[in-house]
């Protein structure tokens, strides 16, 4: 199936993308522990030094042992969704390895951060609901918002039934207008600018909805990130935006230190008088509490807020660097389920059952998606213009 769909001469072991960036695999494994160390240091520094613009929240979320005020139900729900998202991503990687897709990129390692976003967002379509401008590691958020596994698999396998792109784009490049999920695009950083426009329209509509934007640490070097800080914070023109960065300390193979002079990316937001904080994105409770506080603040004041979440990158950058499990970084699901088990909120047996239930669901969804159709060659002309107005010059 794979070889028949590849262009001539492109039967590489890891797909056409396999040769690309193979060096980054070795680079990453070598310096991973150093990176984990740096991350720890920066977090410790952050939690001891309270920023003037930051609310009391740092204190309440500083302890990674605490379960906050969250109910057992919410804690279990979060663990459940985190596992679901991980199982799905691992299934996507298997689909890639089986030669049933060309490329994988996704969000394993960001579940503790991404799931609470999905749970807390005001879900719906139009300016009275939150807009989400996400990047390509956002599966946990969408799973938490109710996206069926099968829809992600359809995207991965470029089926005609893929509801996001109809087989036109890469894995994790979701688009779900019914939930205001703006299309995920490949060019790094552009979502930071586009989010300004939805926030502007939301502000006009006056319904206390906000625009949430996510992105990677390396991508903050793009001008669009600076645009976002500038436009969101204009005096008397502030925009209701939750601006976030998922700092996994990597941009493909370039380390955080290789690009950043600032201690925390969150420091940049302070220069614009944007309320800003750093959280341990491997801790779903800390993430949940911080996200809730900042979302409440934005809805109440109409002003922007900034969160930098320190996260792990558990399968490397993408399939181009092998998509192999990295064991030197913290696995947020393991930490969280161990914690819930030790606090007797859930049993190990129950956790196992969650994993196996979702594994079965993912496998079934894959089998179903496999049988669904492919986009047709004629369809390339569809949707160049709205309402399928002709865009082919041969027919003008």
């Amino acid at each position, binding site marked *: 199936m794979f070889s028949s769909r590849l262009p001539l001469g492109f039967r590489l072991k890891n797909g056409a993308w396999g040769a690309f960036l193979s060096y980054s695999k070795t680079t990453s494994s070598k310096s991973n522990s150093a990176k984990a160390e740096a991350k720890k240091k920066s977090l410790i520094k952050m939690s001891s030094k309270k920023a003037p613009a930051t609310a009391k929240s740092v204190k309440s979320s500083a302890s990674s042992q605490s379960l906050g005020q969250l109910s057992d139900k919410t804690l279990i729900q979060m663990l459940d969704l985190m596992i679901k998202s991980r199982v799905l991503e691992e299934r996507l990687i298997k689909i890639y390895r089986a030669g049933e897709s060309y490329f994988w990129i996704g969000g394993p390692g960001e579940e503790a951060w991404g799931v609470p976003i999905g749970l807390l967002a005001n879900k719906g379509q139009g300016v009275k609901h939150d807009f989400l401008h996400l990047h390509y590691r956002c599966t946990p958020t969408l799973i938490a918002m109710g996206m069926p596994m099968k829809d992600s698999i359809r995207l991965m396998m470029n089926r005609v039934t893929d509801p996001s792109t109809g087989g036109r784009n890469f894995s994790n490049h979701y688009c779900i207008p019914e939930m205001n999920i703006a299309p995920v695009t490949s060019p790094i950083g552009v979502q930071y600018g586009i989010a300004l426009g939805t926030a502007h329209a939301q502000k006009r509509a006056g319904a206390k909805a906000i625009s949430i934007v996510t992105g990677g640490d390396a991508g903050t070097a793009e001008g669009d990130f600076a645009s976002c800080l500038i436009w969101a914070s204009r005096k008397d023109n502030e925009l209701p935006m939750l601006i976030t960065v998922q700092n996994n300390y990597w941009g493909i193979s370039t380390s955080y230190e290789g690009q950043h002079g600032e201690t925390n990316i969150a420091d940049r937001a302070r220069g614009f008088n944007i309320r800003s904080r750093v959280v341990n994105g491997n801790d779903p409770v800390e993430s949940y509490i911080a996200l809730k506080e900042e979302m409440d603040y934005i809805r109440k004041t109409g002003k922007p807020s900034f969160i930098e979440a320190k996260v792990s990158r558990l399968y490397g950058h993408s399939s181009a660097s092998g998509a192999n499990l990295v064991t030197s970084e913290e696995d947020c699901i393991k930490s969280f389920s161990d914690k819930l088990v030790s606090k007797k909120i859930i049993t190990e047996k129950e956790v196992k059952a969650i994993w196996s239930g979702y594994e079965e669901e993912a496998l079934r969804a894959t089998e179903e998606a496999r049988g669904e159709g492919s986009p047709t060659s004629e369809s390339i002309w569809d949707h160049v*213009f709205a309402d399928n107005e002709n865009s082919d*010059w041969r027919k003008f």
Partner: protein
Amino acid sequence: MANMAQAIRLALNYSEKNLQLKDVFGQDVGAPLGGVFTATQGLKTSWNTPLDERGIISMAMGIAMAGDRCVAEIQFCDYIFNTIDLLKIAGNTLWCTNGQYNLPMTVMTPVGAGIRGSVYHSHSFDSWASRIQGWKVVMPSTPLDAYGLLLSAIKDPNPVLFLKPKALMRVRGDELIPGEPSDEKELKMRIDAPIGDRSKWKADWPQTTEYLVEIGKGKITRQGEQITVVSWGRHLLLANEIADELKADGVSVEVIDLRSIYPYDWDMIKTSVAKTGRVLIVNEDTEVTNFGEHLIYRVVQELFYQLLARPRLIAGKNVPGIGLHPNLEDATVPQKAEIKSAILEIIEEVP
């Protein structure tokens, strides 16, 4: 008669009132200046942005995504180049999402030479724009067409690039915009911001009415038999002038104002060239991979055996910029004499 800047202003005012236009924004677009060419003076929805072209295009994309209509301005097209990947995304969003998110946004920007604007106020963008799929691209040559095309752009569900020939911003047409006062002085009094303190000034808008120029439709501005000249923007007016001059010498030139670069009015070109057998395309974007080359390609493919002479393109010279000294600008951008002699040469050519 309104000039093009006034016509654009009237179209924006009409759209604020009738087409749910919610935002008109860009650098110096709001009060007090109302745009470096005054095209956005007195509007209710206009506002000044940070000096950030990428921010401007991104903002427009987000507003469109949220379902509101907006017109964003890039102050000079010379400064649009750092947004080109955003323009690509705006153009591919509907396609990439398999028809789910259309972005009904209009971007307007002044283009072209003719005001001694030197290197960074003379660029053209029509040929560049023709390579950004998913956009409609229009370029008026008269105030009335500017009015009608801008209304169509704002109504269109797709992203539309509205290119304003900057040398024509003060040029008047010979047709009134429906609802426009016929007295030029009255119009000026009512909608041009006063010199000096403008803090209390408000425009007294005339009630213009809906007038649409369909995107994708050209206009025959001179009827003729011996050659077809296809042009747009500033050079269209030159083509008209030349056709009038040559008419006195007994030469019959048909002139087509293309008005829309994409989609373009192939039927009009085809019918005309089939009749005349000769064609000259004129525009001021640079000549290598010029949009006119695409039109000539198509003429050759579809009308080869009806041609009486080699089709020809006159466009900007393929040099990095347009120099300030008139000798430099005039040697770079197509001039009247050059166009006129090309017409005569083509007419004399025999197969």
